[in-house]
């Protein structure tokens, strides 16, 4: 089932026909998870993954020459997420109770039976910290740490330069740390 476009699939250097169906099959999990982490919930992940693939399907016939499918799909997905996040401004009110339920790591002994609970709580904390980051910081951290992309690949996805991504990642890490400490402080208060 060929789309009829010549492309270079991520990491493959030979020209070949790539099927939309193959692309969908290969990338639906990665794109869904990336969007899930960027948007923070499964409803948005579902809707925007669908939109990503529909846009890709629509755009494929217009693609001229070679195309790196992976970065291209991530670019569509992250742009969609950024637009959504900007539109919503993502100002969420966090009830204090939800923060109070988070254990502070220092409250838990290393071999405590509550460690598993802590892991879960810690995942939720990370999730909340990510949600509080500006969209661009969140996007580059998710692409780097969660999707394992290099600075060069992230630059391709975000449409910027490699050195800009380096700086962006540094600022994002600093912001992550600051938000994390803030939330931890609120949790242990």
């Amino acid at each position, binding site marked *: 089932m060929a789309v009829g476009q010549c492309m270079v699939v991520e990491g493959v250097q030979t020209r070949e026909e790539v099927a939309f*169906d193959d692309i969908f099959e290969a990338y639906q999990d990665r794109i869904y998870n990336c969007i899930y982490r960027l948007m923070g919930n499964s409803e948005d992940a579902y809707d925007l993954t*669908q939109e990503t693939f529909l846009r890709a399907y629509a755009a494929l016939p217009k693609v001229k020459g070679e195309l790196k499918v992976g970065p291209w799909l991530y670019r569509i997905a992250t742009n969609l997420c950024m637009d959504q996040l900007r539109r919503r401004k993502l100002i969420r009110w966090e009830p204090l109770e939800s923060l109070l339920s988070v254990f502070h790591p220092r409250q838990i002994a290393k071999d405590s039976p509550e460690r598993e609970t802590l892991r879960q709580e810690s995942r939720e904390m990370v999730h909340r910290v990510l949600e509080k980051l500006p969209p661009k910081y969140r996007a580059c951290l998710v692409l780097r740490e969660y999707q394992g992309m290099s600075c060069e690949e992230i630059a391709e996805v975000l449409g910027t330069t490699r050195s800009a991504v380096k700086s962006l990642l540094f600022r994002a890490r600093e912001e992550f*740390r600051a938000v994390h400490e803030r939330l931890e402080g609120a949790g242990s208060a």
Partner: protein
Amino acid sequence: MKCDPRKLSYYLDGELSPDEIRQLQQHLETCARCADDLARYRRMEHSIRRLERHRPPAELRHEVYREIERGRVGRWRRGWSRPLLSPAVPLTAAFILAAGAAAVWRLQPTGTAPVMTAAFAVQESPESLEGLRLELVFDRPVAPDSVAEAVRVDPPLSFTHRVQENKVELIPQTAVTAGSSYTIVVDNVRDRQGNVQSEPVVLSLNAGPIASLVQESSPPRPPSVPTADAGEPKLAQAEGARSAPEGAVSDVAPTQLPASTGPAGPPAPDGAMVAVASPRTSQATATVTAAAVAAAPAAEARSTVVPTPSAPAPTARPTTVRVSPESVAMTIPPLRSPTPAASRDASPDAPELLLENPDVQRQLGSVTSAPRQVPLSEQAYQGGAMLYRGDNNQILVLVRSTARWQAFPNTWRPGEVLAPLGNRPPGTFEPLRGFGKLWRDQPAVKNQLGWPVYEERSALGTVQSFQKGALIRSTFGVAYALFDDTTWRALPDARR
């Protein structure tokens, strides 16, 4: 080296030179603060990496394909070159066509005249006539060199034609103006055995804003064969089809088509088309609304083709059909003509589809269960079709030449990579996933089915059990009757 948190970040990203790395590592040995910061970055990295990964819901795939099928993105699909797979002829049409052509093809003895079984106006976008083309489908492969002489257009319009087995594509070489109309007469098309189309088919092309192609005279019904087991003739035909040159596009030629002299049906005063039907035919006329038409105003979408009985006069008599401007009409000869007696035999719970196909109804027996929705994938092959039932994880192989079906367990698992295939014949597709695995693992299946001629499509379909078989209805316009004696029939199911 001074403390520089940026360097720590760059270090983690692999963005430092070997010299810088060495300097940083020396610094970290003496600077507890930077070592602490680096550890904190690493913890953050680890915590993000450990976040759980989710499986996208199974409906996501269906939803994406449903949206594509609805033509939600149809207007952007310019440049897709697969005949019958372009947006304006969605799978509904493609599969009806495949099934219709397959059924007729199977029953068609050699030595008879080729019959045109369907015609489409294909539009890449509902907003533009750019890329408009016509597709004519015959019940067997046709001789490419017979096409140029066989098609006449009035007023004259320059076309390129392309022949792909039993499909003829006519591509206008000049822009077709919105609002214009043409009469197209298709006559004397030859099959590869030299049999010549015996009756002209007259088509009326109304260009836009949404193009429609109306058949104004019905093609003659293929000779009726009493049973599906048509024996030698059927086999000979199937062999003939297989022995055709591999591939598909066998001819591309620019053609200045002469003006038609055929009888054009005048438009009725209210905009309805008047069709001239052969008295010898009793063909079912189905309307397939193009996917791209989904964007058309709802008010325009209400019209459907309303077939009326053709008069039993010895000469051609008009049959009136009403065609919505945005629909594409196609005609598929029914596998059997319904008879009132047969209709009475049908169980009251039988789907309406079977009332129109009483022989299938009789062969299936009475209904034993209500239709159940099941995930269904289907793919048409050169020699039949494969169906996947998501409810029992079975793949059904339907072979046209033997009219037999067989069930296989699906052994493919998501993520499993299949062996790459060598060169495939032009116009065919690579079988993927479960179909692909079965096709590769079972040489008999591969030999009987040949290569896929359409993409695999998935959607929710229904399965209904009967005393002596089951009826599987896809959302792509085909119903498959699978009988317990391992024979099968495909029925056009245009209402779905």
